[in-house]
């Protein structure tokens, strides 16, 4: 069953357009949204949560319309927003009081377990929290009413590597234990490599890639070749290329066929970051190739 389904989502601003975004998340799956700042990740999340008005498209959460059944669906969505939280004079205890009143299935015990695990002070106002503590309290709140869907906008930015790793483990455990789903947007590609089952790349308001993480990491390859070698390669045999000071970097999909055809050995497995950079910043096509020559 699709926990979240987006079809042809469009949203136009003066200087930016979210263009026919479509994707879905299955139960128990984690979908990672990757893209540069300003690519449209946060706007997509805001449209899902009805924080911005979509111009077109259909969004269903748990099989229900996200606007018509807004209050019902939101009862089961835990959210971490990058730029928004409660007023700064709240402390951990106030937040518990507030959320107990807001969410019918709020779990005090679980909340205080997270508070303990994150080592957050109970009676200190959140305005005195460090950035890491501030992110952790947002995450603790998002997880403490057992939501079926977590929507996380840059949840690990600003955290040190140890804290990031701890948070990612918590998300992983959460999905495993509750069979919940996560939509996570990030530009920290290593986080998504560890957590996401499926990855979408958003660039300039469009989805340019939507594949499973395993497929991305196993089937894509990175070729490093010289200018001469590059000139011999058919543009249909690579997905993107980028010139560097040693020659060319090519993103390809079928490395065995490629190896047989061109006898180039310098082929390696790219990480998500490399794939993203090549997809977004790389070029494609014979036309560009001729210009480069």
């Amino acid at each position: 069953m699709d926990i979240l389904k987006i079809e042809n989502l469009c949203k136009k601003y003066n200087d930016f357009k979210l263009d026919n975004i479509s994707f879905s998340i299955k139960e128990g799956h984690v979908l990672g949204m990757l893209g540069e700042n300003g690519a449209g990740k946060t706007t997509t999340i805001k449209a899902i949560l009805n924080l911005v008005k979509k111009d077109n498209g259909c969004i269903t959460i748990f099989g229900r319309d996200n606007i018509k059944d807004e209050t019902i669906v939101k009862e089961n969505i835990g959210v971490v927003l990058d730029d928004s939280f409660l007023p700064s004079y709240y402390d951990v205890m106030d937040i518990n009081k507030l959320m107990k009143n807001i969410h019918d299935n709020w779990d005090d015990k679980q909340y205080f377990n997270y508070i303990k695990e994150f080592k957050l002070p109970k009676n200190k106002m959140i305005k005195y929290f460090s950035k890491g503590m501030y992110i952790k309290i947002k995450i603790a709140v998002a997880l403490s009413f057992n939501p079926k869907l977590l929507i996380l906008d840059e949840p690990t930015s600003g955290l040190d590597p140890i804290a990031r790793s701890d948070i990612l483990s918590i998300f992983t455990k959460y999905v495993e234990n509750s069979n919940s789903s996560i939509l996570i947007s990030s530009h920290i590609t290593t986080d998504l490599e560890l957590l996401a089952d499926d990855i979408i790349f958003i660039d300039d308001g469009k989805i340019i890639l939507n594949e499973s993480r395993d497929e991305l990491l196993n089937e894509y390859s990175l070729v490093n070749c010289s200018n001469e070698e590059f000139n011999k390669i058919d543009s249909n045999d690579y997905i993107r290329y980028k010139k560097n000071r040693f020659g060319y970097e090519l993103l390809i999909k079928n490395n065995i066929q490629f190896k047989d055809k061109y006898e180039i050995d310098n082929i390696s497995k790219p990480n998500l970051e490399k794939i993203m950079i090549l997809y977004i910043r790389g070029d494609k096509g014979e036309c560009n190739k001729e210009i480069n020559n």
Partner: protein
Amino acid sequence: MNVIKKLIIKDIIALKAYKKLITMTFIMAVFFTFIGFIDKKMEYVTYAGIALPISVLGGLASSVLYEEEKANADSYIMTFPLNRKNIVMGKYIFNLTLIFGGSIVVSLISILCKIFLPLNIMKTLSVMLLFGGATNLLFILKTPLVYKYGTEKANNIFMIILFAILSVAPIILLFVQRHDPDFKYTTELLSSFITYIPVVAILLLIIFNIISYKISYKIYLQKEL
């Protein structure tokens, strides 16, 4: 109604930020009421003991709205199982709750005072209505502007509107004086209506609250958070 109750509780928790102000207000109210007892001055009880707490409490709904805006909490609150209609309605009901809550507290104080002082209950109720109504009127005039432009800009616009209204008042007075130099007929006219004024004022406030809420809701519905 359950959702509105949730929102009011949320706003009551938010009053924590104004704990000192609320405490100070009630200390002042009790202090002036006490002075009123000693000096036998009813004005102290009426204005400081009654008007002050109602005015301060009534103003707190706008302050909570401002704090949420400052923290950019609007977006986060919209992720709760609530919709925009609930959020806007919650703010109006919270304002009325504070005014009624304040009124109940000061009514109890007044009843206690009546045992010891010749307090005019009708006058007390009038003061309560006047200040409660004025505070509510300020809220309902300002809130649509706050939803449209944000608190800071709304305050500036509101000051200009207030200044314009206050500038018109002397002109109206001059106009009345020209036709009724001693205000004799005007006083008579007002006197004949005086008993209806509280009822009319309450009815007008109810209508203004509904209109203001509808405007605010319409604005908030279009707002991108």
